């Protein structure tokens, strides 16, 4: 028997009390697939979880409680916990995406630090001939170098 759960939109959540299951419709534009996976993975220990994609940009998550037959209240709590986990996973995913460059830089520094300082042989073999970077506008030049008086040419006052 399918029915809506009190307080929850029947468009978003439908409960099947006989099966002890709830079907949630998740907007895939709002929640990335990685977040849905992460939330679903957390619930694998407590529920049987099945995903489906009935239409583009909609993912249906079916949670069937393991163990004793759940009541409507139990299913409502399950939906609430899943919603919280989904939001948390989406936010973690967003933070990771935003800070990816910084995380990679810190990780690279940690790895290069773990390799230890260069040996004397490595320093001796290091090629210092390359210019560190191009500076066509002279931004890296010191004020003194840039504006120092040029020696007067012969014949000039």
């Amino acid at each position, binding site marked *: 028997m399918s029915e809506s759960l009190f307080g929850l939109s029947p468009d978003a959540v439908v409960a099947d009390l006989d099966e002890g299951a709830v079907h949630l419709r998740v907007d895939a534009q709002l929640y990335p697939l990685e977040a849905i996976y992460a939330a679903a993975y957390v619930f694998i220990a407590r529920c049987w979880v099945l*995903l489906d*994609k009935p239409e583009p940009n909609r993912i249906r998550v079916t949670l069937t409680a393991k163990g004793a037959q759940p009541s409507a209240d139990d299913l409502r709590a399950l939906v609430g916990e899943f919603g919280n986990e989904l939001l948390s996973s989406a936010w973690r995913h967003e933070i990771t995406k935003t800070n990816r460059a910084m995380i990679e830089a810190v990780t690279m520094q940690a790895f290069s630090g773990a390799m230890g300082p260069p040996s004397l042989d490595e320093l001796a073999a290091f090629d210092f001939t390359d210019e560190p970077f191009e500076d066509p506008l002279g931004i890296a030049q010191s004020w003194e170098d840039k504006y120092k008086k040029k020696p007067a040419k012969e014949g000039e006052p």
Partner: protein
Amino acid sequence: MIELRFHRELYAGTAIDAALVRLADYAQFERAEDGAHFVVRVSAANEKRARKVARELGNFALGLTVEKGGPDR
């Protein structure tokens, strides 16, 4: 017999295959494909057992898909 449908954009075929291998001792499986879905039909000595194995198969397939980083590309 229980029929499970796994959407190709959500489940990795290799993960489903691995899940089928893990549960091969508990039921008989028939694998098929239907448009956007991988289809697995589960049959066992009785309906209750088939249903339980089918549910475990769903969890295994999802867990292995997540662990490998998503569906096959």
